[in-house]
């Protein structure tokens, strides 16, 4: 098996330094990390991707809903007690643009009329204004797979289908065939980081804690609290530094402990490395954020709203961080709507729509709307069949891509049938879950390509991409 240059460098580092020396201090780590990053990217412009992860599995089939009489009747027949009112969907209708120039992207493939969940008027506005697109029926796949192939076992589906943990991992790694894979956001960062003026500063930032999506081989994700970046009280620049600490003796002692002689225990080395890098990072960030003007856009005071607001603040200081390419991760929970779905999804989608809209507006205000793309991702879609009061874990689901660079007001990919299993839905696994027709690999590769990853790196980041009929969904032209 051929070893990539990056992998070769990484292995050489461990061979020569024995793994231990590598962690003898943050300075060394940075040098080595920079050396190991590929150096064939250089950017004069700025671009960022924002992954909006909906933990629990959003029900795409009650998010984007048909309202023409015939298709609505099919939908209402499948969704029974969970069906949204036809008039409410029609009042929040989408007005897709026509196909142009032989490119994908246009009205929904099934010819039906769709609207958004009534909780999402803001997102409807973005779609109809051309700043948002729908990508239909995306899910984790090993190969393209039909109902017959699935039911007769002719083509392997991803392992552990319908399990949160596994489907989340498959969405975030795009590697259902490799349980140990890094995230595709992390793999993108591994190749693109060298294009940043300051590659030591992680291009992967998370506003909602550690995630698999951003786990890279070389680039570590940097976690930021949406409420702001804290400094250490004991080191003299924190909230309670007035109480104690802050002397040279204090900082010397603290630094000696976290940056001193390499600990003999591997877990201690890892703890020391992340503790010291946290301090190095906040020193830069706090300084940058303190000099940035207040945002002119008002954000909703919600979980997603606050996270995306901090992303917007970080966008403002991108130059201070030496960032030309960045990937952000935000998330919201509560999408696992087995019960009480009508009320829960109403709240979830209200939050999503308002936050995405505010974020888009902020990018406009910052003059970055062409440079920043947000996209949704989720564990899985939900079953078309229902539990009492909710829906079960499914497979394919619909997603949104939002930003000024998006060829918006369009549906990409194929809309699935909404028939019940019993009525012969051709997209059905046989038990109410919908088989995806667009792979996460295609979705991810399209976004990575827009961000600037070249063709050969796309092929190595998404090794299964060639199995699908197109390697780029052409969402960005």
């Amino acid at each position, binding site marked *: 098996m051929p070893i990539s240059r990056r992998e070769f460098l990484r292995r050489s580092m*461990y061979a020569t330094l024995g*793994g231990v020396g*590598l*962690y003898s201090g943050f300075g060394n780590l940075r040098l080595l990390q920079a050396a190991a990053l590929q150096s064939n990217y250089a950017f004069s412009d700025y671009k960022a991707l924002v992954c909006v992860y909906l*933990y629990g599995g959003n029900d795409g089939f009650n998010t984007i809903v048909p309202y023409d009489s015939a298709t609505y009747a099919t939908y209402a027949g499948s969704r*029974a*007690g969970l069906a949204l009112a036809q008039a409410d969907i029609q009042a929040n209708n989408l007005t897709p643009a026509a196909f142009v120039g032989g490119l994908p992207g246009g009205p929904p493939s099934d010819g039906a009329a769709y609207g958004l969940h009534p909780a999402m008027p803001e997102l409807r506005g973005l779609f109809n204004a051309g700043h948002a697109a729908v990508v239909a029926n995306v899910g984790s796949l090993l190969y393209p797979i039909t109902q017959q192939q699935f039911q007769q076992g002719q083509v392997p589906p991803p*392992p552990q*289908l*319908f*399990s*949160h*943990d*596994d489907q989340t991992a498959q969405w975030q790694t795009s590697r259902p065939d490799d349980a140990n894979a890094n995230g595709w956001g992390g793999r993108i960062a591994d190749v693109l980081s060298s294009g940043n003026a300051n590659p030591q500063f992680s291009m992967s930032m998370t506003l909602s*804690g*550690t995630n698999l999506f951003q786990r*890279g*081989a070389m680039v*570590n994700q*940097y*976690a*930021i*609290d949406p*409420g702001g970046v804290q400094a*250490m*009280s*004991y080191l003299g620049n*924190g909230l*309670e530094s007035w*109480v*104690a*600490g802050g002397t040279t*003796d204090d900082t010397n002692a*603290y630094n*000696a*402990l976290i940056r*001193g002689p390499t600990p003999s*225990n*591997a*877990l*201690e080395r*890892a*703890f020391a490395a*992340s*503790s010291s*890098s946290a*301090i190095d*990072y906040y020193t830069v960030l706090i300084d940058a954020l303190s000099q940035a003007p207040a945002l002119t856009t008002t954000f909703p005071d919600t979980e997603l709203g606050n996270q995306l607001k901090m992303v917007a603040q970080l966008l403002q200081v991108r130059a201070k961080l030496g960032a030309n390419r960045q990937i952000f991760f935000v998330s919201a929970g*509560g999408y696992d709507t*087995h*019960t009480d779905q009508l009320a829960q999804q109403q709240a979830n989608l209200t939050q999503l729509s308002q936050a995405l809209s505010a974020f888009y507006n902020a990018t406009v205000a910052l003059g970055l709307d062409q440079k920043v793309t947000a996209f949704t991702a989720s564990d899985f879609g939900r*079953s078309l*069949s*229902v*539990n*009492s009061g*909710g829906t*079960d*874990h499914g497979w394919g689901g619909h997603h949104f891509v939002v930003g000024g660079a998006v060829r918006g007001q369009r549906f990409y990919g194929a809309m699935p049938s909404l028939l019940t299993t019993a009525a012969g839905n051709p997209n059905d696994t046989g*038990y109410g879950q919908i088989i995806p027709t667009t792979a996460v690999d295609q979705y991810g590769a399209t976004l990575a390509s827009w961000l600037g990853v070249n063709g050969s790196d796309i092929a190595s980041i998404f090794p299964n991409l060639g199995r699908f009929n197109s390697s780029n969904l052409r969402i960005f032209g």
Partner: protein
Amino acid sequence: MKAFTSNWLCISVLALVLWPTLCLAQVAGPYSDAEAARFLAQATFGPTATDIVHLRQVGYQAWLNEQLAAPVSTQKPYLDWVAGLPNVPDGNNTVNDDTRMEAWWINALGTPDPSRGKRVATDQLRQRVAFALSEIFVVSNANGTLAYEPYALASWHDMLATDAFGNYRSLLEDVTKHPAMATYLSMLANQKADPTQNIHPDENYAREVMQLFSVGLVQLNPDGTPKLDASNQPIPTYDQTVVRGMAAVFTGWNWNNTSCVTGSWTCCAADTYTNCGPSNTNDPAWWNPLQPVADFHDSTSDKQLLNYPGVALSNGILAHGGDARSEMTATLDNIFNHPNVGPFIARRLIQRLVTSNPTPGYVRHIAQVFADDGSSAHVRGNLQAVVQAILLDPEAVIGASYVPNPDAYGKLREPLLKLTHLWRAMAAGSQNGRVDTPYPEWESSYGQAPLRSPSVFNFFKPDFQQPGELRQRGLYGPEFQIHTATTAVAIPNDIFHRIFCDYTTSTRCYTSSGPNTMSINADRDAALALNNPAGLVDLYNLLFMSGQMSSFMHSTLLTRLNALTDNSAGDLGRQRVQHALYLIINSPEYSVQK
């Protein structure tokens, strides 16, 4: 150490198969205060000087026997007590999830319980194991319903504490029938298929009870390593047909009707199935086990359950016709007897108490005890035996020098357990016995708090690998999942507040003199710190680091303490105590329990 080692001689002579029966009773010690402190770090919420002395007096086994016999400390009585207080000051008798957290602290710390005449909880091991179980069998207040149901969550924790030394099979049944779990994983009011409404039974609990609470996704060898097929791939433990089979089993369960007759809330029956249930947070339906409603149980389909060598049901198929109770019993038996359960639960409990990367031999030993407790009755699933075996295994008691990769031994301390350790070792307490709720909440600073996980997958996963050396070497470090750049600052800052603001007699900060504020007794060691700073470092090396402090760290601390010289306010000793504590608790060496 020599005398100690001789007690382990049987290991080298006898096959590990015989270990549980022949060697369990022979574990003697501890032979030093440091060994005692180390054991207490694994078995309690943190060693205290008193506990070290006591453990040395009685020895490991007698200490364990005392702990097994200690009465269970529960949380629900505390909620009742708070509810009965006068509402002065305003909010004093409010019962919410913060009240439940207070009860957890009081039991975990063993501080005098104001709700029970200042009784001090003595069941440290039980509370510690219950906390570990709460990170395996996860329910959480991060849920639209349970956020407002402190009685449900308190009774959940009480159930874990009560069952901690019982049988896993009973625990599994109590977990399954508890209304908190039934709410959290939507088994409550799950119903049989209804084709007219396109309704399938809810698969949520069916999937997670297997994936997270019992057998896991892939077949395991007795030592916890995955079984591999001919092409070196792991073998799934079950497939979707089993998830569906179990989903059908877990239909027809609803709230326990006890007390519904009072008219305060709608009783559950066939005609009220989806709109019955308790109306008040302290209605007993929030803690009584679920009851079946026959009309909604699927009694007509055959159900595929787990199939494995020696399975009691032919091919793992449960024939139709049973009622909700009998089918649940058969199904939980079917899960309980799967060969994965022992190694699956063993690895998780070992990771919570002792080490993140147990050797296969350690897991195999514990799995064997799970399979057969060594008693004449040959009981399977005896958690009391399992917990003792985990703590008395040479890998726990001897530690790094016992394993092939000594530099990978141990575990990152759970952030919240740093605070329990600080407070216990420093005899913290509040004026009125209650525990103040901080802002931001515990979980915001520490990345965790009991029954407040962001999802059923806990704050961190058993297989989390920190990128860098740990991942490169294939080493697990679950707790690293919450050691982010954010918590790497937030945790030291909260510890800072606890040490430098909130000490006995302090008026330093806004919180310092509050009646609910937990204050450390920094003055206890002030005289020692003043006269003999090296002695203070030695004392804390024992209390916090089981005597494992490196000479570099020792001298670094001593340099810092000696540089504090101004005693004009008469508080030099206390200041040295504070700096020593802060530097230790946030140090890499302390942060890894090993």
